[in-house]
């Protein structure tokens, strides 16, 4: 049963040449491919079907790749996204975000074997995930970065000053905060993530996924926050200052 699982890949690119090529190539790797032209179609596709992997072009008319990534994440948290770009300026950003698990390919693709590798990796992971639905939630498809950062937060649209907090680790999808308040799950927070030297910062919003008493710090709570809006270039600046 496990062996029969076929990897389902979504290709989002406004360029027909790319769609055609990836479609051919991924088909050759015995995976199912669906190609769409823009973000809107991608979202609709993900709503209908469950995909394991998505190739996202960054620059597209309408919604750009990052935007699509955020939206797809909301619908299907287990979807691993690979970015593609033909722009030199974006490569630098990806280089810095590598640690957060972002994979990006330059067009034209340097090495088709890399795509093969990704495909087989995801294949392995998705096969694991198949076993229990819960494990899909637990399984992190993007790595966590264990760094301590200062974060200011406040409840969104509340007219109150920002409160200081600390984070122990951060990933592309969310952040774990050490806070004094016992926040209600589902609360939307405004966050200012500061670099260690406080020279740069990243403004984001995120939802409280879970909250529990901190084991090591008495009177504190650990809160799991999932980003809803994030500027990746700001985030990369904060992490790699």
């Amino acid at each position, binding site marked *: 049963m496990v062996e029969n699982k076929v990897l389902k890949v979504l290709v989002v690119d406004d360029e027909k*040449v790319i769609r055609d090529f990836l479609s*051919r190539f991924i088909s050759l790797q015995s995976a199912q491919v669906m190609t769409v032209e823009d973000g809107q179609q991608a979202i609709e596709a993900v709503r209908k079907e469950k995909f394991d992997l998505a190739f996202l072009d960054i*620059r597209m008319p309408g919604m750009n790749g990052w935007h699509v990534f955020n939206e797809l994440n909301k619908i299907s948290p287990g979807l691993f996204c690979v970015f593609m770009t033909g*722009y*030199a*300026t974006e490569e630098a950003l990806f280089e810095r975000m590598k640690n957060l698990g972002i994979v990006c390919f330059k067009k034209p693709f340097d090495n*088709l074997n890399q795509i093969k590798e990704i495909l087989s990796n995801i294949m392995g992971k998705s096969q694991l995930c198949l076993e229990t639905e819960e494990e899909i939630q637990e399984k992190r498809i993007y790595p966590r970065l264990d760094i301590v950062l200062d974060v200011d937060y406040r409840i969104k649209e509340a007219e109150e000053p920002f409160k200081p907090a600390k984070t122990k680790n951060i990933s592309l999808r969310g952040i774990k905060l050490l806070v004094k308040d016992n926040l209600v799950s589902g609360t939307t927070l405004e966050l200012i993530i500061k670099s260690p030297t406080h020279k740069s910062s990243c403004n984001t919003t995120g939802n409280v996924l879970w909250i529990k008493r901190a084991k090591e710090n008495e009177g504190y709570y650990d809160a799991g926050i999932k980003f809803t809006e994030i500027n990746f270039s700001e985030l990369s600046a904060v992490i790699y200052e």
Partner: protein
Amino acid sequence: MTQRLRIFLPAAAFLLFIIPAAIFFVKPGRMLFKERLFSELLISVNNMDRVINTFIEGKKGRVLDFCSDGIIKDGLTNYDPDAVDTDELVKQINHHLTKNKFVIDLYLESIMVLNLKGKVVFSTNEKFLGKDNSKKDYFLYLSPYLKGKGLRTQNLNLLVYVSDVFFAQDSKAPYFCVSAIVTARATGLPLGAVVNCYKANVLSKFVKMGEGYLGGSGKIYLLNKEGFLLTAPKYFSQQGKEVILKEKIEALPVIVAQTGLPAGRQAGPQILGLYKDFRGVSVLGVAMLMDNENNWLAVAEKDAGPVIITGLIIFLILITVSASIINLQKRIRKKSQEAEEAKNQLYQSGKMAAVGQLSGTIAHEINNPLTGVLNNIQLLKMMLADGKGFNPEDIKPILDTAEESAARCANISRSLLDFSHIADGKFNPFQLNEAVEKVITIIGNEMKQHNIFIEKRLDPASPRVRGEIQLLEQVIFDLINNAKYAIQKNPKAKVGMITIKTDFNPGEKKAYLYISDNGIGIPKENMEKLFTPFFTTKPVGEGTGLGLSIIHSIIRRHNASISVESELGLGTTFKITLPSCQEEANGRK
């Protein structure tokens, strides 16, 4: 380094001279030093003229007063040289003159009363008695009237003559005389003349008074017609020696030449300019031909020493300034040359900046079809390596895509090369539509990325125009880029729309290019400044304000015109009117 020196040295020299010059100029006021001196001289000479004239007028009045004296009249009436009591009469009158008249005027040297023949009949000086003065100018002037001429027309009682300065025969002292006619009480017929003699050095007193105003180096002196000194000027070397009427002024030829004397030009002051005076010292001089019978000339002079220094300073300043100006001109010429070059460079750099800004897009533009070429070929190789065997029908679409992609790459790179090609200043005919298409090839995708659609409404007649296609492509490119910016600033424009229209009017031989957008529009107050260099509404760092001014200058170069219509919030249309060369093109075909 040398360049710096060339600027620095004149500047230093300039400063070195300008400071003392400034001090020099500021002190006497705003008027130039020289002008001030001349006006001082003019005032002095005028003053002196007035003073001397007043003096002379006073003397004229005096002699008329004497003429109306009844005792003198009676004396002249009764005088008869052959009469027995002549001596008694002469004594009486002489006594009267000395006692009652002579004392009135301190300057008086002597009084003479002449009969109709010019013989001295009475005098305060007995030596003069009996002398024949009929040849003296003061008598000659009056003699026609004394002989009865002009009796009816002339009021003899007011006829006065002032003589030139002269030496009396027996005296070393120079005199001048004022004479008038004595008339009979009853008949009014002339009886004789009264002559008042004055020592000429009286004039010197008045002249000295006038000199005071001129300061240390100033001097004033009087000359007679022949150029003899009538007053003793300052600095005249012969100390204690009488110079009046004995010394001729060598500088007179200059003065005469300047004033037109003795031909007798109009009286009044004349600026003589800079010349050497009797000492050989350079002076600034002003002369005044006095309004009297003898054409006396008053000369006021002032040493030109300070003036020369000032002049020297002015000269040096002028030299320095003109040297700086020449230098400046050279530099301006060089700069304007550079500016011309810079302008061309500006066209180019504006374009290259646009290309640079585009490079990301261009890379994207090229990288996509490159993927189609490179990766599809890799794919084929992988398929071959697999050795599974594949049917040719699978391969053909892959090869088609690869070929198509390669052609696209070539097209893009050609357009880009054409676009960034340096305009060579040569005008060639080209099709307006072609330029539009090329720009869209380059920029189209970039616009698509920003949700901006370009609508082409190109005239199928494809008007031909003459010009530099590279420059016009740049114009189109920049206008599309501006349109993009305007669209992004317009919150109402959900979807960006740029319409590019070409049109052709064969009758007027005009080709039109319209570029319209649904952007934010241009406020009325900015319309006028639109093509002004450095005018921009973009935030600092985003716009140089040069785009439209470059466009304007390119348009001008093509004898074309550009106009704008805009409505706030709705959009803007740029209309470019170009002279078309359609016929020429048709002829070639």
